[in-house]
């Protein structure tokens, strides 16, 4: 990639939107994951009796939280893929088309 092409891509409004949106979305999702997981670890470390507390029958808070974290992890990655497949891929296609088209 030469400097001219680099400057052109960086000046492309689509590129600026892509970077801004994906960076903020990626970090937001990461922080959600980190807060959920380390929140869970905090409960394990400081309130272990809460983990063993029974909710219904012998199903405990710990089992619900654990299974919930696993299901949430899958859901969060799924949400990211759905958004990336539409919005980010569209933007990327437009950026690549304008960058390579202009070179030809």
């Amino acid at each position: 990639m030469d400097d001219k092409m680099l400057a052109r891509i960086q000046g492309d409004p689509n590129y600026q939107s892509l970077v801004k949106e994906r960076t903020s979305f990626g970090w937001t999702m990461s922080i959600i994951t980190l807060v959920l997981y380390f929140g869970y670890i905090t409960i394990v470390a400081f309130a272990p009796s809460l983990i063993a507390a029974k909710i219904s029958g012998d199903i405990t808070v710990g089992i619900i939280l654990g299974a919930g974290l696993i299901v949430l992890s899958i859901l969060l990655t799924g949400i990211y893929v759905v958004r990336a497949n539409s919005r980010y891929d569209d933007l990327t296609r437009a950026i690549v088309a304008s960058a390579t088209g202009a070179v030809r």
Partner: protein
Amino acid sequence: MSRKFALAGPLLALAGPAYAAGPIEAGARQATNWTAIIIFAGFVLLTLGITYWAAQRTRTAKDFYAAGGGVSGLQNGLAIAGDYMSAASFLGITALVYAGGYYGLIYSIGFLVGWPIIMFLMAEPLRNLGRFTFADVASYRLAATPMRAMAATGTLVTVAFYLIAQMVGAGQLIELLFGLPYLYAVVVVGVLMIIYVTFGGMIATTWVQLIKACLLLGGSTLISILVLAQFGFDFNALIAKAVELHSKHDAILGPGPAVANPINAFSLGIALMFGTAGLPHILMRFFTVKDAKEARKSVFWATTFIGYFYILTFIIGFGAIVLVLPNGIYHDGGDVTKGLLGGANMPAIHLAHAVGGDLMKGFIAAVAFATILAVVSGLTLSGASAVSHDLYASVIRRGNVDEGTEVRVSRVTTLVLGVVAIILGVVFEKINVAFMVGLAFAVAASANFPVLLLSMLWKGLTTRGAVIGGWVGLISAVGLTIVSPAIWELVLGHPKGTAWFPYVSPALFTMPLSFLCCYVFSVTDKSARGAREQAAYEAQYVRSQTGIGIDAAAAH
């Protein structure tokens, strides 16, 4: 014993399958299990056939290292799941739940939560910047020689510790399950792995992972359904029965004593979560797909399969308490107060027998062996790539080497690594290797992950910062593990309480230390090279975001 378990416990599920309660006595070998051997022989024949087919298609370096870049997102997701769900997950977590209840499930959760982070921050730039190894990415704009030397060392250390745990685990497991001598088992694993990797490269390795992942997911699903069927598909009834039967009763629903210390809980949590994002054999799989979109799909499928599997460990673990614990036929001398036949890692295998008889047990035993074989193959390919692609081609030959030679070096390295793995498996037979996968995760989180993440996302990183941060993370993680109770007391035999570093995992300290060194030695780097590297970030960033310039994009 309970003290020992509290110390060793947190590393067990990470570790080879064979050590939930110390080494297994040699006398525990079981009668030759023909069902298991026939099913496993079927797996071997099928995978050797695939290797033959893959060998015809392995011509270029890209074929060898990255399966030609033609793996789909779904296939790669399943293969990643195959690489990631080791026998330690299946046998180790079941054994931990069997012994301590909920404690084991903390691992199930910790092993999964690294995946969303890989998705949100790493998968796409990783694919857009790398070709064959994660060192490609880390050295993209930094000085190739010191970066690759550091990254290759991080890779080889991670792979070596992981490999030893798997080889020793394989030997012990096969001795127990198949009734074969330890040495045979280690040699069989070593030889098959060499054949898969040298002839079939990444294509064969990928297919071995795919088949193994399907077998493991299918087998676990079947066991879970059969367990739940005994309770009218009422999970609550299963838990209630487990609490009633287990000697610890209600205590099995709590996290247990091993993570009662908050520093242990957090350090373990960090090692599990971020270690995943620094495992070289997992990172390498991202280069087998054609673009960032497929890389992202890979993570989604991997997360789904792995998450599904770990949910099943809840059912399988408590199922083992209910169906194996009170049944005399699974215990030494038919006495339920005595240890399990074959050792403490056998609950999953006995559970298979309890719900499906000899056939099911043979099937699950074969799946466990296939699992180890597949993981070992992935590890070896990753180690061989670090030697040929990073050390030989870039560090020794400074890039003046043709692809054919590089792949030949990789094949020879595979052979050497296979022989070394067999030797290590024999040498470590009697040694408690429980700490080794824990060490691999700690090194991955403390050396590979910080450098890789910062090289992609932080403009300010320079070679000086990355090299110092990477080495400091690597050396401190290995060093603190050596002076932790798992090695200092249990392996080296120093008296209890003399370990300098009293925690289960160093990651809570060594990962931030590595980040800090990367930062400090980059911002104080006033060299011209450092300035050039920071300036080169812009072009790297554009490529990491758009994929412009990667092989697939260059084709049109």
